[in-house]
């Protein structure tokens, strides 16, 4: 406990010193009150600000869904509103609202994922969610199920890959399914496909087992 507090105090002070130090660099070099600011530095200061802001635009777009057209659409709307009305708050809120609406209406992907209707299961691992081999954003799972005309009273298996550590995402996924009307999701554990076993040759499985449905082990409530 005591060493942990000391460690965190160290973390806080190191972060403070470095962040503050980086920000103070120009003031330490050119901040003296007695001497006038060199002309070049002042010119650099006025020149650097639009460059920094342009870089910040690129940097913030990198955190958005930049592979889809939507951030650019919302960005174009923001710029257009700003050019016409010159009300920053209006432009920013309009752009953000449009972006949020478009993003959460499932417009981020136009692909159509075909599901196997006899087994509409969701594969869950630490690396994300896949349905029939295609990786899916959790918020779009319900849309994919609806697009494939899966009735809401179907049992939906969420197959957890063996060795999955973070179960909270799975819980969130169940919540999303329940909200979308799919009230019967079941968490099952899924052994890794035998295709991954490239070591020693395996005995051929008995034909009955090969043809039957894949074995599913239901998790107990305590697991």
């Amino acid at each position, binding site marked *: 406990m005591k060493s942990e507090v000391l460690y965190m105090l160290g*973390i*806080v002070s190191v*972060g403070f010193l*470095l962040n503050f130090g980086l920000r103070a660099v*120009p003031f330490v070099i050119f901040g003296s009150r007695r001497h006038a600011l060199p002309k070049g530095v002042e010119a650099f200061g006025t020149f650097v600000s639009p460059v*920094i*802001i342009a870089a910040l635009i690129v940097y913030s777009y990198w955190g*958005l869904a930049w592979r889809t057209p939507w951030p650019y659409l919302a960005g174009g709307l923001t710029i257009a509103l700003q050019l016409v009305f010159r009300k920053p708050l209006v432009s920013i809120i309009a752009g953000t609202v449009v972006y949020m609406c478009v993003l959460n209406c499932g417009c981020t992907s136009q692909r159509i994922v075909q599901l196997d209707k006899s087994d509409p299961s969701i594969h869950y691992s630490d690396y994300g969610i896949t349905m029939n081999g295609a990786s899916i954003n959790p918020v779009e799972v319900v849309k994919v199920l609806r697009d494939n005309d899966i009735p809401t009273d179907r049992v939906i298996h969420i197959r957890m890959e063996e060795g999955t550590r973070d179960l909270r995402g799975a819980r969130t996924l169940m919540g999303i399914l329940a909200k979308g009307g799919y009230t019967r999701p079941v968490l099952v554990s899924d052994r890794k496909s035998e295709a991954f076993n490239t070591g020693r040759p395996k005995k051929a499985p008995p034909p009955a087992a090969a043809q039957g449905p894949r074995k599913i082990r239901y998790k107990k409530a305590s697991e």
Partner: protein
Amino acid sequence: MLNEMPILKAERHQLLRAAFVDSMPVLMGYTTMGFVAGVLLAAKGNLVLAPLWAFLTGALWVTGTMNFACVSLVAAREPLLSLALMTLAVNFRYAFYGFSMLARWKTVPFFRKCYLILMLTDENYALEAACGEENSAHHLYYCTILSRLNHSYWVIGLTVGAALVAVLGHIVDPETIRVRTNGMEFAMAALFLVIFTDQIRSFLSHEK
């Protein structure tokens, strides 16, 4: 030192309102981002007194990127040196922000200047650099108010997020919050776009 005219009360109100209106997009971004960062720190940081650390990092670092990046680092109890290296690599851009402010803040008293330097974050810098206030006393007043507002949004978001996890346990799930506020981060990009648009426009009108 302060040879400028004191600011009139009416002007004070005007500047205060301008700073508050300008800080609205930052309010949207900082509170949600800070909240998620606080929840992450408390839920995944493997710490005692998580709300205290969330408060201290928020108040003293004031950098969103590092607040997200430090979570895994702190959870694994990495040495301080790796935090230092990561901070240098991620936040090197901060070393350039001061250049635009050198001339304007030349006569600012020491401690006030230190606070303004501490608050040179991406969003705060963008707004301060874009502020067209000619009178330097007015500009200083505007910057101080804006910094205090944005600082408080960030600290409140972080601390509330961490405190909620500390009180409610795992009921607050970072993933759910991320899904609920999905897309809110566009407010920051939009803020930069608007400021850039205005800068280009004023540049073009000066050329004519």
